[in-house]
């Protein structure tokens, strides 16, 4: 019997593979495999100086220095951004840190209409008309949200629309921890 055991090995290996696939399938309900780990985490945020919307002032990286801040990339043409908008307003109210908006590849007039229609949750909005700053931040689409600590390092990056769970379980606790440090 013991001599026959090696012949069972392929079947055992196959069963292990099946188990692995099954686990991955079951996990896919909560985990999107096309979602990528951000390499920008724990890296310093890229340097920038953005113009504002219309005649309002924009902001630069130096304006964020020494503060914990949230940065959200959005666009008026982006449907998920509209869906995310009420959550951004809630986040701006509850987080206790400033929320900056970056208007990604958008027409300023459209963005102004969008913000006046739905209300602006942002302290300041900068424009990134060609999406260059987006590339510097490793953005693959809108909306994306970053949390930057006092030293200017990116501590959180979400490449998907915000959800109440992401805000309550990830962002808010991290904001509190970062503000104490």
């Amino acid at each position, binding site marked *: 019997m013991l001599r026959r055991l090696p012949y069972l090995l392929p079947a055992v290996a196959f069963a292990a593979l099946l188990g692995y696939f099954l686990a991955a399938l079951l996990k896919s309900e909560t985990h999107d495999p096309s979602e990528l780990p951000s390499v920008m985490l724990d890296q310093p945020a890229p340097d920038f100086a953005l113009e504002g919307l219309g005649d309002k002032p924009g902001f630069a990286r130096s304006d964020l220095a020494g503060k914990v801040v949230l940065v959200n990339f959005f666009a008026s043409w982006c449907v998920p951004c509209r869906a995310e908008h009420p959550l951004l307003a809630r986040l701006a109210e509850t987080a206790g840190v400033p929320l900056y908006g970056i208007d990604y590849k958008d027409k300023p007039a459209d963005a102004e209409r969008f913000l006046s229609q739905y209300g602006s949750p942002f302290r300041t909005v900068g424009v990134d008309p060609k*999406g260059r700053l987006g*590339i510097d931040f490793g953005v693959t689409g809108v909306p994306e949200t970053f949390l930057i600590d006092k030293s200017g390092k990116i501590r959180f990056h979400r490449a998907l629309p915000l959800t109440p769970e992401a805000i309550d379980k990830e962002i808010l606790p991290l904001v509190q921890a970062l503000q104490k440090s």
Partner: protein
Amino acid sequence: MRALLALLLMVWMTAAALAVEPGERLDDPALEARARAISAGLRCLVCQNQSLDDSNAELAHDLRVLIRERLRDGDSDEQVRQFLVSRYGAFILLKPPVERDTYLLWFGPFALLLLGAAGVVAYLRRRGRAASMEPPPLTPEERRKLAKLLSEGR
């Protein structure tokens, strides 16, 4: 037959149409060729299974333009690739680099092959040994039976 040939020809000709737009191209053919070579080896982050060269996603367009700008400003091919890897991770490279995280990917198949070869060698050896072994001598009982059978045959 002729219609089929024409159809094949049509399909074959369309395959040459890539997503690189005329407005993106650089005037210098050498630089443009380098840009094409780089973008063919990079993944479009939006479609994820197309190269930057093939994809017509907005981000792919932006990245193609960025690659050309960097080349024009004197970046080497490697510098351009490094910049994009630092922003989007090694995932952007269609050919994964050989590093600790990818050892299993690169060497796993060869390890499996070796394992299989070792199994085959072990099996053949054992079979060879079994074949070359002298069979055990007949017992007195068997000898009697054999003698009986042989005598019956005559």
